[in-house]
């Protein structure tokens, strides 16, 4: 389709906007002009552009132009809703927008509404909406839960969804889909615009945001961000690389990089790693004290805000962070980014690189510090992926009934709905396009009667039908509970950490603290703290020094993306004869030489299996390069299939490259047997027999139960109000398993296990690839460079197919009393 840039460029609005830009020394990029033209012709769409090129202004200025060209079509009230995934983005964005409006000479008001907005401000907004409102997906839903929602949206012309790639593929993305569908159906002329960075499935991203029959245009910026990737080489190659061992040594080489830069962000993958690097830097260069800071999710919000401001103002030399700084406002002074360890994915890597050299024509400079020498292959792989611009896809979630039932209550709360009408609306979303009549009735039954089982539900009045046939919420208490718990982000039970002398340090997972006793020391926010006492969800500490435990936070370990693993295999295969440009591979030559002489380096169409016999016992290694999660499933599957030949028990270890099965009894396996255990036949059946899928589903159900409103989440500080309503999702899961196996939320838990935990499609394709590969089976008597990091990995698990009763009997028979976790 063609968009007439020419026509739109003859309007007054265009002239005013471009003059304003010219005054600031800017010229519109062609994708901005295209966006303005498309908007002017009434279209919806999606803008794809790298960060730093003004993609925000492409859509925002389009709305301003449209208004200036035809002000008669706009009424007083809220005209533009701007959705951002994170709160911290909203504040600065609002400031920039208001500034532009003022300079251009309009009288529009921009305001923010999210969890940080105080109640008074919200009340003012409800009385009189600003012209532009910046919200999060959650606060948008909260607006829909207000009785006055029709008043709010009557003048609405456009909803813009910023950083759509961050939301797509999450339940928050589904929240956006639902809200947009509702608004579209009620306000016919609404335009929807998405703004996204490049991802693998852009067309699908557009289709999800703007589903048929509406048609959206995709506007892709031709401008490209230049990224300069520099590996930090260790002094010598360790031929037996040890995960995590090397990183710390490289601090000596990281310090000069920081000193040579204006301002640096160091990205780590876990909070534990960030705490460690903060300490390492201070030890290596004590003058950094006061010049560097630590930023991660467990640090007090106010401190984080201070750090972000200081970074913007150029007051900090470096900030050590986790993904907590992946997104957010531009930090102009930042000219260098350092990635510690693997970034695990191309998209994340580019996102992080983009945090330096923010203005359009600057080069983003990123250094990669490997935590073991094999990670240097990853640098080579990343370079290749960035060059080819092959970025991961974000698969949108579908049939997430927990989000749907929550949304139904939200809509019931804000004035009610008619079921038949709303069902049509919901079916217009990508997430629920396959919603059946039965599923819909089930959801209605769930919110009105509490579910399928049990006859005696006279107390249940969550949603009721009123005289006009509208489904509504009438009870204040239910309304309040729903508003308080709205959203799809389910957090671990967290505890506040405070000094006994007063002062707030941050948040920490309850399960970590529950393992400590008074006097134990741990590290948080870069400080050594001694636990004094725990009282009412608050941990009291005092400053201390000396040896302390760094908490290992749950969910810290991201798996390698399939995209990156493809390039890894490719680079590894090429490592025998690297080109002159592939410096990382040349540097690793001693390691590859050892791998080649002791075992083998797999070519792209080969699959390597090593059987290594040591004094300890028998180690079977396989290298699918599919990431830790998939390897966990594969290892369990291999163990299961081997034990069908003869009973044997294993312990397993894995990293992103491969996995190990270890047994102290002989693993006897011939080539034919190896072929058969690697077969893709009966794959999922065998997987299900080899893992405890019920246990996995139970864990997934935890979030689902919270989102669907079956479990009330505890908020620190607020938990007292809800104490009599606390329950465990595990108990509910068990009851549903026993009495209501067809419960949609229960089924959803299993589906999530298949799609997310077992990654069924990826597993299938991995086995397909292995089956078409030549299987290379090697024996060795010492560890090879590829096997060593897996062997020393601490995340070792043992595999036991015995049921609980057998395990307890065995513990009793072994004479020893079962150990108790402190």
């Amino acid at each position, binding site marked *: 389709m063609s968009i007439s840039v020419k026509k739109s460029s003859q309007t007054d609005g265009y002239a005013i906007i471009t003059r304003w830009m010219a005054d600031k020394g800017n010229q519109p990029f062609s994708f901005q002009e295209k966006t303005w033209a498309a908007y002017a012709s009434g279209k919806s769409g999606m803008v794809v552009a790298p960060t730093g090129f003004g993609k925000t202004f492409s859509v925002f200025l389009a709305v301003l132009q449209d208004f200036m060209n035809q002000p008669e079509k706009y009424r007083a009230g809220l005209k533009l809703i701007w959705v951002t995934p994170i709160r911290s983005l909203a504040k600065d964005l609002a400031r920039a927008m208001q500034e532009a409006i003022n300079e251009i000479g309009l009288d529009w008001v921009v305001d923010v509404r999210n969890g940080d907005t105080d109640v008074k401000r919200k009340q003012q907004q409800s009385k009189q909406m600003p012209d532009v409102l910046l919200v999060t997906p959650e606060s948008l839903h909260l607006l829909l839960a207000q009785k006055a929602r029709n008043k709010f949206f009557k003048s609405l012309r456009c909803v813009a969804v910023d950083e759509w790639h961050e939301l797509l593929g999450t339940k928050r993305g589904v929240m956006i889909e639902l809200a947009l569908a509702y608004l579209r159906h009620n306000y016919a002329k609404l335009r929807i615009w998405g703004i996204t960075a490049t991802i693998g499935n852009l067309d699908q991203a557009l289709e999800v945001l703007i589903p048929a029959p509406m048609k959206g245009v995709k506007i892709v910026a031709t401008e490209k961000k230049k990224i300069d990737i520099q590996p930090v080489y260790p002094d010598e190659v360790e031929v037996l690389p040890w995960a995590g061992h090397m990183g710390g040594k490289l601090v000596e080489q990281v310090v000069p990089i920081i000193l040579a830069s204006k301002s640096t962000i160091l990205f780590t993958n876990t909070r534990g790693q960030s705490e460690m690097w903060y300490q390492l830097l201070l030890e290596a260069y004590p003058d950094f004290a006061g010049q560097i800071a630590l930023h991660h999710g467990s640090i007090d919000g106010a401190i984080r805000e201070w750090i972000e401001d200081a970074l913007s103002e150029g007051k900090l030399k470096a900030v050590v962070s986790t993904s907590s700084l992946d997104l957010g406002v531009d930090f102009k002074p930042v000219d260098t980014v350092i990635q510690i360890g693997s970034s695990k994915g191309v998209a994340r890597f580019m996102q992080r690189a983009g945090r330096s050299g923010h203005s359009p024509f600057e080069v983003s400079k990123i250094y990669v510090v490997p935590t073991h020498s094999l990670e240097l292959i990853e640098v080579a792989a990343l370079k290749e992926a960035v060059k080819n611009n092959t970025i991961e896809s974000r698969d949108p979630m579908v049939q997430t009934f927990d989000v749907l039932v929550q949304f139904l209550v939200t809509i019931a709360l804000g004035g009610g709905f008619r079921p038949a009408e709303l069902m049509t609306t919901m079916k217009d979303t990508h997430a629920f396009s396959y919603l059946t009549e039965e599923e819909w009735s089930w959801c209605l039954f769930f919110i009105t009667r509490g579910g399928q089982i049990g006859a005696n539900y006279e107390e249940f009045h969550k949603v009721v039908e009123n005289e006009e046939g509208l489904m509504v919420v009438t009870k204040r208490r239910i309304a309040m509970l729903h508003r308080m718990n709205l959203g799809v982000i389910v957090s671990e039970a967290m505890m506040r950490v405070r000094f006994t002398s007063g002062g707030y340090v941050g948040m920490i997972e309850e399960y970590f603290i529950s393992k400590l006793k008074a006097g134990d020391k741990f590290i948080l926010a870069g400080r050594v703290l001694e636990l004094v006492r725990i009282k009412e969800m608050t941990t009291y500490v005092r400053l201390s020094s000396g040896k302390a435990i760094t908490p290992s936070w749950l969910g810290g370990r991201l798996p390698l993306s399939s995209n990156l693993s493809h390039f890894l295999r490719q680079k590894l295969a090429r490592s025998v004869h690297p080109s002159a440009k592939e410096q990382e591979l040349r540097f690793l030559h001693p390691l590859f030489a050892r791998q080649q002489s002791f075992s083998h380096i797999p070519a792209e169409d080969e699959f390597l299996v090593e059987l290594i016999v040591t004094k300890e016992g028998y180690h079977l290694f396989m290298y699918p390069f599919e990431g830790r999660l998939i390897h966990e499933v594969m290892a369990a599957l291999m163990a299961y299939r081997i034990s069908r030949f003869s009973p044997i028990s294993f312990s397993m270890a894995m990293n992103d490259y491969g996995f190990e099965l270890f047994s102290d009894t002989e693993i006897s396996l011939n080539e034919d047997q190896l072929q058969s255990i690697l077969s893709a036949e009966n794959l999922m059946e065998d997987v299900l027999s080899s893992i405890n899928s019920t246990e996995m589903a139970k864990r997934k159900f935890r979030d689902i139960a919270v989102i*669907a409103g079956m479990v009330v989440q505890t908020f620190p500080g607020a938990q007292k109000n809800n104490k009599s309503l606390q329950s465990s999702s595990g108990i509910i899961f068990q009851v549903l398993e026993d009495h209501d196996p067809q419960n949609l939320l229960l089924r959803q838990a299993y589906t999530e296990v298949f799609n997310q935990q077992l990654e069924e499609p990826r597993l299938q394709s991995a086995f397909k690839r292995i089956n078409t590969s030549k299987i290379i089976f090697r024996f060795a008597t010492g560890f090879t460079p590829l096997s060593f990091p897996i062997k020393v990995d601490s995340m070792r698990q043992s595999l036991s197919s015995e049921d609980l009763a057998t395990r307890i009997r065995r513990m009793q028979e072994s004479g020893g009393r079962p150990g108790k976790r402190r």
Partner: protein
Amino acid sequence: MKNIQEQEIDFAGEKLVLTNQRALYWPAENTIILSDLHVGKAAHFRKSGIALPQQVATRDMERLRDLITHYHPEKVLITGDLLHAGMNSEVALLKDIIQENDSCKFLLVKGNHDRLSDRAFEELGIRILADGYAIGNIHFTHGDRQFSAGIHSISGHLHPGIHVAVGRKSTMRFPCFVVSDTQLILPAFSLFSGLDTSCVPEGAFCYAIYEDGLFAVSC
């Protein structure tokens, strides 16, 4: 008969039988002793619009009925938190059990959740005992208040649980009876209840409960 596994212990010079149904039986007194039934909890949740299956409540009541059929006790003694939140439809299930067993006495030492008046309990057929009521030299209390040391007591309130290592890296949580020289803490009878794994005092013995039995863990 349903799945009832037993473990005999000595406490305060008496023989008591712990069961995997989270209740204990005192043969000499022909009494079942249990705590923290939280009857009506699921209904209380539903009143607040939280969808919970009816079975959450009926399961507990079926277990109580099974215990009574099995032991034919003269007395059922509850050390508090019988009702979670006042009167509601689920309390009727308890009332049914009390009426079915009119030869059995139901006794209650009130807990922090039992906010109904003594008279309301009497009307349900439950006799209220004073806090610290004693049979022989064993005293009964809910457990939310300090009890003078040296006195043998049976209490509830805490919902005790214990972590047990079941492999090199993994642990599991079990509800348990906690037994020390002078104190016996009962597990919460209701399956719809959480566990407190930090309340077990040093030197006490725990009897962890699982589906098919009990096992001892020393702390």
